[in-house]
């Protein structure tokens, strides 16, 4: 209790210093006065009485010091004094302070920005209750996870008891009419207990049940709205349940509303890795038929039962393997089932990228610290005199180190504050730069307490890192040598400065070389031939609702009508239709059987449906045989066109392929009839420039086997003249045929291509940014260091010039030194960069990590930069009048 009182009054004592000193002075004066009066009464003279009084009292100053120590908190007071002193120092050297603070702001700001990205995407747990119990289940194909067939999902759900709940989902589109403007909406098509599996029970109404799964695909029995849609279109009306809305022309009753914080799971199979789906507006039930293993398009999430681990779930699945059919035949060991924790699955695609970027930014931070340490050492040498004097006056070594570190921390905090401001903008900038939908959990990236804490910790750590070495030097400054005038032989600090510059250059080389290989890789990637001619090709997507287009024939008629209108347009050279647009994001792969060959296990092909003229429009070469034509109706013999890659896999040449027969599945002949190959076309890179061209089996739209295949169509046109008129032409043609149909994405194929490489572009741009920042820091650093060195050697240079050396000789001396230092730094950098760029191998496309051209270019850039940066201050010094230089000390 008393100790609390003591602490409180000592805390208060901090604030009343001035008053308290005055009070004490009064007390002391009164006391001395009384003592002196005593002595005067005893007969001493006034002067002797004073002396005697003071003797009796004891040392006044010593007592005052003891009093002050007891009154406040000496540690805090010392700290405050150091801070005051530090601030004064910083104001006295504005140039140095600005350079150091700017350097730190850049380093800490970039690091904090990247950390908030890494934190939001990788580290923060998913936004569901007990997210660590959520796992993703998928089938395995050639080692990679692929979507699941309904038949498999139903089997797993029924038999695997390691899971408390399991749900499957896919994405669909639907058109909402009758509630505001008609709109095409993204729908999550989900199985029963979807909400329960995720742990997010609807805030109104119910979730889907098993009964809902049995409904017909064409007649959804129920719909659940997201909170956002409920607020936006239905004014959050509490009596929403039971009302019907019109989806695709059909009335569907609303049975529930999801909670506000519900986030639809990431799309784990979009091309390019996991993708956030912020636009899902409502949930529809997923129709499921047991034994349906024809097409794999479901994503499955399971919640482990309490106490069950992932390993146990996997073991359970292997135990069940012999009883599972379908794809289980592929992999006896795991039943062909992959089980991974959901968060891991979501981020595993981007974890390497983000960690690489974070490592790069840390490198930048280290360069910034080295820079500031350089600047501090340079300035520290100038303050040597001050420290020596203070040591001579009795300041302890620890005290000096403490003061120096306080100044460093002050600098670090300044840099940290600036860095935080940079990070706020940086996060916004990076979020804008991230290609839309390419990074999972983008919504989770923001600056919060964790990021702030990180910024603070980083600021303090960097301050200690760059401040420690100079601080120890300051503490050691006890030699008398610096006090002597004319001391210019500062060789030791120069060696240290040289070492630091070498380190900086080496680290910067790593960044520049990394950026270089990424840029070259991106360059190579964009040079890849996608298999079609993207220039002047424009595509428009539509989604045909079942209400208006219940049958195959209605959809085929629609397609034909739009195409004939498009072909009549004057500005259009060619038009075609396809359901799976290349680089368009839709993937539909499936089984097939080749007549006379054993089925190749685990081999899937794309199965696009195209109109006649599609290949010409897209510029895909017809290598053998013929294109589809108007004779290939649904009554005519079934035709198929395959790609060159497919032909070569099964037959020795493309000409052999023509006339052979293929089936699109293993069902009975009425379902999967034999089709005859009538032509072979060039390979197309369906999923992107960086991936292989997968084999594809094209069927004519007129002979498409199942209605759902034609629900999504893309119309492609090749513009004859002005490409800008093509998009409106597509829209017009569609509206002429069906005025009520919303047109989806309208994009030039070249734009789609550019978007598809947005991630490599992002990588290259960001790393190039870091490399650029590093080069900037190097320039500042070398400017500063050379400037300091040259100033210290002013006298030496004055002597040289007085003895006849020309200005250019002096400059040459400095530049040569800089050249040497940077060359050594580059060599060290090459040694560091070789293992470092090897880490980038997975991001590189057709370029080796230690590409010699890039390394040479990086070396040249750094050496030239160093030479240029040292030339400037050297020139300035060489122009100084030798007489002035000689008098400099």
């Amino acid at each position, binding site marked *: 209790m008393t100790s609390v*009182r003591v602490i409180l009054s000592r805390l208060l004592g901090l604030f009343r210093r001035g008053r308290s000193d005055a009070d004490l002075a009064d007390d002391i004066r*009164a006391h001395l006065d*009384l003592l002196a009066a005593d002595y005067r009464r005893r007969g001493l003279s006034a002067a002797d009485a004073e002396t005697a009084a003071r003797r009796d009292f004891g*040392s006044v100053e010593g007592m005052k010091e003891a*009093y002050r120590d*007891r009154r406040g908190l000496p540690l805090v007071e010392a700290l405050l004094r150091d801070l005051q002193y530090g601030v004064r120092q910083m104001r006295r050297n504005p140039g140095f302070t600005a350079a150091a603070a700017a350097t730190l702001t850049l380093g800490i700001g970039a690091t904090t920005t990247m950390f908030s990205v890494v934190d939001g995407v990788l580290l923060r747990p998913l936004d569901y209750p007990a997210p660590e119990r959520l796992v993703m289940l998928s089938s395995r194909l050639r080692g990679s996870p692929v979507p699941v067939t309904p038949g498999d999902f139903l089997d797993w759900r029924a038999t695997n008891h390691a899971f408390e709940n399991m749900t499957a989902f896919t994405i669909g589109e639907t058109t909402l009419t009758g509630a505001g403007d008609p709109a095409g909406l993204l729908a999550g098509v989900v199985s029963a207990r979807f909400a329960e599996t995720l742990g997010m029970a609807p805030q109104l109404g119910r979730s889907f049940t098993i009964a809902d799964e049995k409904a017909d695909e064409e007649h959804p029995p129920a719909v659940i709205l997201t909170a956002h849609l409920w607020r936006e279109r239905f004014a959050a009306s509490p009596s929403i349940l039971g009302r019907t809305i019109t989806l695709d022309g059909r009335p569907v009753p609303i049975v529930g509303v999801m909670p506000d914080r519900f986030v639809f799971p990431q799309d784990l199979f979009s091309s390019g890795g996991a993708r956030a789906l912020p636009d899902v507006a409502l949930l529809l039930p997923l129709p499921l038929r047991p034994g349906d293993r024809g097409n794999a398009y479901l994503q499955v999430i399971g919640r482990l039962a309490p106490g069950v681990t992932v390993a146990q779930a996997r073991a359970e699945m292997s135990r069940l393997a012999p009883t599972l059919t379908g794809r289980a035949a592929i992999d006896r060991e795991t039943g062909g089932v992959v089980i991974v924790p959901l968060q891991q699955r979501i981020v595993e695609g981007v974890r390497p990228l983000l960690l690489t970027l974070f490592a790069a930014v840390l490198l930048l931070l280290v360069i910034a610290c080295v820079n500031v340490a350089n600047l501090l050492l340079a300035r520290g040498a100038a303050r040597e005199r001050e420290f020596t004097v203070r040591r001579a006056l009795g300041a302890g070594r620890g005290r000096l180190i403490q003061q120096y570190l306080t100044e460093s921390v002050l600098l670090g905090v300044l840099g940290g504050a600036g860095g935080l401001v940079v990070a706020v903008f940086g996060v916004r900038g990076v979020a804008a730069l991230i290609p839309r939908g390419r990074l999972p959990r983008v919504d989770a990236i923001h600056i919060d307490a964790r990021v702030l804490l990180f910024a603070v910790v980083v600021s303090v750590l960097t301050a200690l890192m760059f401040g420690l070495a100079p601080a120890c030097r300051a503490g050691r400054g006890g030699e008398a040598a610096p006090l002597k005038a004319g001391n210019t032989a500062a060789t030791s600090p120069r060696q240290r400065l040289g070492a630091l510059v070498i380190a900086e250059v080496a680290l910067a080389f790593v960044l520049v070389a990394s950026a270089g290989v990424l840029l070259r890789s991106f360059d190579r990637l964009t040079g890849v031939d996608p298999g079609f001619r993207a220039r002047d090709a424009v595509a428009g997507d539509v989604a045909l609702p079942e209400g208006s287009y219940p049958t195959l024939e209605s959809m085929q008629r629609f397609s034909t009508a739009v195409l004939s209108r498009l072909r009549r347009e004057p500005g259009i050279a060619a038009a075609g239709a396809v359901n799976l647009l290349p680089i368009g994001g839709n993937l539909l792969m499936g089984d097939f059987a080749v007549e006379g060959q054993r089925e190749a296990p685990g081999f899937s092909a794309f199965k696009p449906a195209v109109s006649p003229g599609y290949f010409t429009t897209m510029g895909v070469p017809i290598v053998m045989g013929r294109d589809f034509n108007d004779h290939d109706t649904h009554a005519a013999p079934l035709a198929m066109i395959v790609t060159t890659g497919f032909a070569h896999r099964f037959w020795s040449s493309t000409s052999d392929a023509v006339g052979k027969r293929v089936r699109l599945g293993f069902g009975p002949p009425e379902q999967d009839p034999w089709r005859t190959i009538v032509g072979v076309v060039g390979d197309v890179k369906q999923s992107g420039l960086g991936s292989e061209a997968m084999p594809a089996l094209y069927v004519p739209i007129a002979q498409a086997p199942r209605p759902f295949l034609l629900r999504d169509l893309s119309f492609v046109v090749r513009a004859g003249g002005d490409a800008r008129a093509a998009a409106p032409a597509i829209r017009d043609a569609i509206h002429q045929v069906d005025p009520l149909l919303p047109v989806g994405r309208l994009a030039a194929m070249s734009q789609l291509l550019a978007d598809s490489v947005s991630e490599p572009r992002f990588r290259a741009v960001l790393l190039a940014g870091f490399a650029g920042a590093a080069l900037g820091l190097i320039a500042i650093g070398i400017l500063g260091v050379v400037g300091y060195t040259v100033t210290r050697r002013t006298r030496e240079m004055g002597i040289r010039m007085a003895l006849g050396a020309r200005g250019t000789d002096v400059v040459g001396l400095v530049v040569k030194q800089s050249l040497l230092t940077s060359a050594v730094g580059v060599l060290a950098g090459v040694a560091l960069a070789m293992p470092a760029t090897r880490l980038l191998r997975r991001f590189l496309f057709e370029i080796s990590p230690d590409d010699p051209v890039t390394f040479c270019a990086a070396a040249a850039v750094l050496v030239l930069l160093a030479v240029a940066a040292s030339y400037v201050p050297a020139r300035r010094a060489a122009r100084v009048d030798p007489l002035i230089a000689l008098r400099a000390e």
Partner: protein
Amino acid sequence: MSRGSLLLTGNMTPADVPYGTLDLMVLKTLEAMGPLHGYGIARRIEQAAEGSLALNQGTIYPALLRLEQKGWIASTWGASENNRRARFYTITRAGRRQLLREAESWARTVALVNRLLQGEP
């Protein structure tokens, strides 16, 4: 932080007396004599020691500060005999309790030591 030093002369050898003893003496003085200023307390302690104690009077002030921080004494401003502004100190209730505790503790220590000494044959 320098300790207060009381120079002990006479029967005792010069030694540093820790603050604990000074606390006790100050509290007792204030309890017995009522409100005093620093000079008065120092004078009184010297008198009570009957010459065997000669203390640097200034050291009383850090001790008084400490006692005040602990809440055992309180201070008010007044005027000294020479009409100078000075602080007068009084003992508080908590101070009186502390005094009793300290006195008891002293008595116990003394009794224990006496017993040990007398215990020898």
